[in-house]
């Protein structure tokens, strides 16, 4: 097991800077998730950790060992690829044995470990099959088995669930977490799916455009987003954003005409100076229908059975709110929304940085 420490990592492809200085710490034995939109550099970061790419600057350390210049084979990592990358010409058993055979392990030990991994993942009946005779889910398990057998100090997962269908994805997600808990090996997991990130991570790194925007336990990042991007990335439906100006304890929401827009009260924040242009962030489920409050003109509703989503505008800016299932709302209604000041996020209108955290 190793803790991973990344400092100032830079990576360029031609003229494009893909990683612009990454600092990250993955505690030993934890499950770290790199999450972000496409092109944010998370896969590149993972490949740098694996040693499949060479860094242009900065360092990567496993515990105290500087591995930045080391070949993958010397780093003692195991990787599960998005496309599984099984050896097509070898049977499942041989796929599992491959890494150990390279390290000249004794056949007895190899067999023991292979059987162990096979039983952990339910691969026993498949051991003599060729990869092309396996389903997607089976192949993914073999890919994981191949990584487990090696007993490395670090597991790396490159979007392993992307190629599975939705039902399977949910199931395997749980299995991966259970596996991690059993083996207690440090894992770094890359995904673009924030649900996977939220449910799997011990520590989550939200990345955007070659930088780590925020790192921390999932719920902390969710509740205390430090930037507008992070706030909008996590949560579904996404957080609502309203532009306005600070006026004392309230934010005056900008209105389309010159008149006064609605006002939202927020919890005290030192940086919320008077007159500052801010963006207010409110999650759809943090509002309540009340008698007085921010007026929402409903334009569209989605009834999901367990809950209902109402889409509309507040002072001309688009909003979606979550309502209890029993609340009957039709387009055209004007709802009054009440918001708990504690749940109101405040971001600087230009930089997007949070004014609360």
């Amino acid at each position, binding site marked *: 097991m190793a803790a991973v420490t990344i400092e100032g990592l830079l990576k360029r492809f031609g003229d494009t800077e893909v990683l612009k200085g990454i600092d990250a710490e993955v505690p030993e034995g934890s499950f770290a998730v790199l999450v972000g939109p496409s092109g944010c550099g998370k896969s590149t970061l993972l490949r740098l950790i694996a040693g*499949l790419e060479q860094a242009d600057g900065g360092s990567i350390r496993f515990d105290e060992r500087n591995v930045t210049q080391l070949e993958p084979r010397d780093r003692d990592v195991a*990787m599960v690829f998005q496309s599984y990358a099984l*050896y097509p010409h070898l049977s499942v058993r041989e796929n599992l044995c491959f890494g150990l055979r390279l390290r000249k392990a004794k056949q007895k030990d190899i067999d023991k470990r292979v059987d162990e991994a096979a*039983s952990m993942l339910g691969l026993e009946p498949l051991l003599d099959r060729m990869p092309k005779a*396996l*389903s997607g889910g*089976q192949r993914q*398990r073999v890919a994981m088995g191949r990584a487990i057998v090696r007993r490395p100090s670090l597991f790396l997962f490159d979007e392993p669930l992307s190629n599975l269908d939705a039902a399977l994805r949910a199931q395997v997600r749980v299995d991966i977490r259970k596996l991690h808990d059993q083996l207690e090996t440090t894992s770094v997991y890359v995904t673009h799916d924030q649900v996977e990130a939220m449910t799997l991570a011990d520590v989550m790194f939200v990345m955007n455009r070659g930088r780590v925007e925020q790192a921390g336990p999932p719920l902390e990042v969710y509740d205390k987003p430090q930037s507008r991007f992070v706030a909008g990335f996590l949560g579904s439906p996404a957080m609502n954003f309203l532009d306005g100006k600070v006026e004392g304890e309230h934010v005056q929401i900008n209105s389309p005409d010159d008149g006064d827009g609605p006002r939202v009260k927020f919890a005290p924040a030192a940086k919320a100076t008077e007159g500052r242009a801010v963006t207010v962030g409110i999650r759809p489920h943090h509002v309540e229908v009340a008698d007085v409050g921010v007026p929402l003109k409903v334009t569209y509703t989605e009834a999901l059975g367990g809950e209902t989503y109402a889409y509309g505008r507040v002072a001309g800016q688009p909003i979606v709110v979550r309502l209890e299932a029993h609340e009957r709302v039709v387009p055209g209604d004007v709802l009054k929304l009440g918001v708990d000041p504690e749940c109101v996020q405040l971001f600087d209108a230009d930089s997007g940085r949070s004014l609360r955290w």
Partner: protein
Amino acid sequence: MVRGLRAAWLGAVLCLVGLVVPRSAQAETLRLWHAYRGDEKAALEALLAQYERDTGVHVETLNVPFDAFLSKLQAAVLHGEGPHLFIDAHNRLGALAHRKVVAAVPDGAEVAPVLREAAREAVSMDGRLYGLPISMKSVALYYRTDMVTGPPDQLENLRQTLRAPLGAASYPLAYASASLYFHAPFLHAFGGRVLSDDDDFQFVGSEAEASLRFVHGLIEDGTVPASADGALVTQLFSSGKAPFAISGPWLASELPDGLPYAVAPLPIIGAAGEPMAPFLTVESVFFTPDGAASPRAAELGRYLFGTEASILRRRDARVVPARRDLPPSDDAFVAAFEAQADTAVPMPKSMAGQAVFEPADKALKKVLNGTMGAAEALAEAEFRFDDVQRPPPEPASTTPALLILGALMSLAALAMVKRARDRSFRAEVRRSLPAYRYVVHAVVALGVLVFLPLSAGAAISLFAGPPDEQYFVGLHNFWLILTARGGPLLANGSFYLVLLTTIAWTLINVFFHVSIGLLLGTLLARPTLRFKGFYRVLLIVPWAVPNYVTALAWKGMFHQQFGAVTAFQLKLAGLLGMNMEPIAWFSRFSTAFTANIATNVWLGFPFMMVVTIAALTSVPKDVLEAAKVDGASRWQRFRLVTLPIIRPNMLPAVVLGSVWTFNMFNVVFLVSGGEPDGSTDILVSEAYRWAFTRQAQYGYAAAYAVLIFLLLFGGTRLPAWIKSLRQRSRSVGEDEPGPVGRPVEVKA
């Protein structure tokens, strides 16, 4: 539409007319074939032009290369399109008569008295004259008047005539020693002969051995170069590195103008006590059967043979005429050759006579470069000669073959009838009828262009005898081949030895093809390589150049004196401070084989390289990355991941390459030519020799071809057959893929 059709018909009619008309116009023209070059060609053309001016008869000439003469003549005469007259050397008379392309000279008895004795004898068969001799050629002694005082009285006293001592790398006498034609003067001086009157091999015995020992002695004491060909002799004589040379009148045209030289008849050999007597070649005008029947052709022949023509030829082309009723020449050059012609021995003209040279040349080579003793080499030559001359096999009864054929055909017919009666089969055929329309032309084309010639060729293997009188011998040819004609199984020229050579040739070549192709393909597939396009083009070039061009170029490079490889070898040796003799690449099996392999590897690796590049694209990049992370080094990734994945893609290419290499005629024939002594011949080139150089033994060669086909067919079917056996044993344990997404049970 109608207009187009009409135009097409008109065109067709015109074509037909065009084909027919020249035929009749040819009745007015005489056709004459020859193989002359240079002055002789000019003289001939001048004579023909004069003839046309005098008689108004146009003579159409065709210049045919010497080697192709015989087969072209035969083919043309067979179809009635041959020449009326042709000019050829008398020693081919036997072969010409055998192929029935020559007829007796009309009114030959009138002509005979005018001829020199030797010339008359040379062109007579069964008491009749078969050609009109127009020139006599032999070798004589050339000498540099600026370097020697004159011809020696005895060959042994050559050095005494030198005006000044010779420089380094010089020889008193240069001639092509390893050729029976040039060795003949020595042989005849010692009283030996090449062929008896009964067509028995006579280049054996004490006289022949004495002549060989004598020449070997000349080589040993540096009088004569160890091995020289015509080009080298010319070069040595003209550059002054050899003041004496033995060559024929053709040498004169290759010497620079103003070179001070003269010619004299060959001297006496003191040790033999007799003068050196070279072979005499009598060039003659021959009549084809068509020509002999044409009075116009007879007239032309007499004109070419006439005194005027002879004198002109003697003057302009400097050849010795065969008539003896001419005024003496004032050209010292011609006079010398004329004097030599008196002692020259006419070359044998029977077909056996032609068969003497191949084994005799081989024996000469071996004896003169010290590889074998004289007696042994000559005995081997005699054995070879008898082998080639062996009487053709007895005709076999066709009954068993016809019975078998009949049985097979009835079985096939029965099987077809049985299938045809099956209703579902008939329905299927009816359904597929439209498809046959698309396929029928390809089937017909393949049938006519591939299967028909293949079957015809295979059928020839069941026959033997001269080309126009083949008779059925059943499987006798195969029997002869597979029992190595009664000799030891691994004797030189036996099927099994050649087979082993061919297998070694194939294996070694394919090994290098695949390794080099694999290496270069892998290098070129690297994404970071610059100038990739340039390298690809450069590396395809060996494959793109026609391979006989390549073969000839490499042959030149391996030349012991002038070759680039030799120059490189000497340069390298010089750099390393070693004193090396230039390697005689084609004098030993190992080096000749290496030369062939080098050429063929150069030719063949691009194909494998291209196949490798294509196959490498099928290796998924992430599988290689997985191997990297699993801990494989670059070599391990290549060996354990890349190679197994591309192997099924490479296999067809390797099979193809093996088959092509097994049959690579061009390289073996053109580079080493089977040297030394036929040991580097592979099955195809050996088959070629049987068909085209050893008296047209087509049936034997066809049997060779059938055997090659069977070998390759079996060889390529073998892996597939083994694979199907293996698969049958493996498929016992196969099941269907399992259901999708079983829940994973992670044991706590």
